[in-house]
């Protein structure tokens, strides 16, 4: 399994490409590797409650983890913020998500996890998504936070992945994805 912590030791921004079959395994192993550090976790497809449930089941310490959850509000009545989570209106609300992330970057979190680029494209067109990613990575680069962006290695999103590859310091493919190719 790819050691994200090691990759982030020498790179500030990493794009982690994985096959969908490995997704759950990767999100867990990354959290395990970064455990104990302050993390801002942006989720676009699992509610923060479901991630909390998953991570706690795997005995991960979430004390220093804050979620920016852009999905819960779309399916249930949700406040703007709760214990350890800030809620954005939807995964397509790029400006809102960007503003919330900017606020967090000012607090010098050790790591930012963006889960995931793949989900952004479900809700928005390629062009605004590419602009959003480019602007976000620029903001990260002037902060002290290190970031990992997840993306599924799906062909339909090749263009966005190529574009994002030019913005990040390193692109890492999980072993299984390499084998698939």
């Amino acid at each position, binding site marked *: 399994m790819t050691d994200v912590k090691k990759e982030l030791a020498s790179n500030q921004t990493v794009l982690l490409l994985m096959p969908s079959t490995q997704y759950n395994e990767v999100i867990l192993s990354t959290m395990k590797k970064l455990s104990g550090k302050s993390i801002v976790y942006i989720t676009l*497809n*699992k*509610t923060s*409650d*479901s991630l*909390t*449930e998953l991570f706690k089941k795997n005995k991960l310490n979430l004390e220093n983890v804050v979620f920016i959850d852009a*999905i*819960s509000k*779309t*399916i*249930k*009545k949700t406040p703007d913020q709760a214990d350890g989570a800030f809620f954005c209106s*939807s995964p397509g609300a790029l400006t809102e998500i960007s503003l919330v992330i900017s606020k967090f970057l000012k607090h010098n979190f050790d790591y930012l996890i963006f889960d995931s680029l793949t989900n952004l494209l*479900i809700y928005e067109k390629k062009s605004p998504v590419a602009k959003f990613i480019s602007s976000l990575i620029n903001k990260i680069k002037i902060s002290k936070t290190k970031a990992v962006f997840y993306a599924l290695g799906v062909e339909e999103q090749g263009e966005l992945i190529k574009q994002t590859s030019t913005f990040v310091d390193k692109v890492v493919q999980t072993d299984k994805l390499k084998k698939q190719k």
Partner: protein
Amino acid sequence: MAKTVMVVDDERDNITTVKAVLEKEGYNVLTAISGDDCLKKVKAGAKPDLILMDIMMPGTPVREIIPKLTGIKVAYLSVVRTSEEEKEDLMKSKNIVDFIQKPFDIEDLVKTVKKILG
């Protein structure tokens, strides 16, 4: 008499696929592209025995549409991963009969529809 299923999804590809499969199984299939569209069609007289409703669509939130569909069985289709507690909460409405996680196997979907509609 054939039972009627309404497929409500903002992704037209999903509607097309599910509609084709359910029609092949002998169901009458109605479609709608949002919760609002579904409600409009029900108010106009559509009487589905089951609604397969994507949980996240543009327009009025689905959670506000469900209570207005009194007496009609609804199964959620969800790309969103939720916690067990959230799922239980979502299933609390009287007319919600199932929660189907996307992406689903089309054969499983047919089995679920058959189970619900008898």
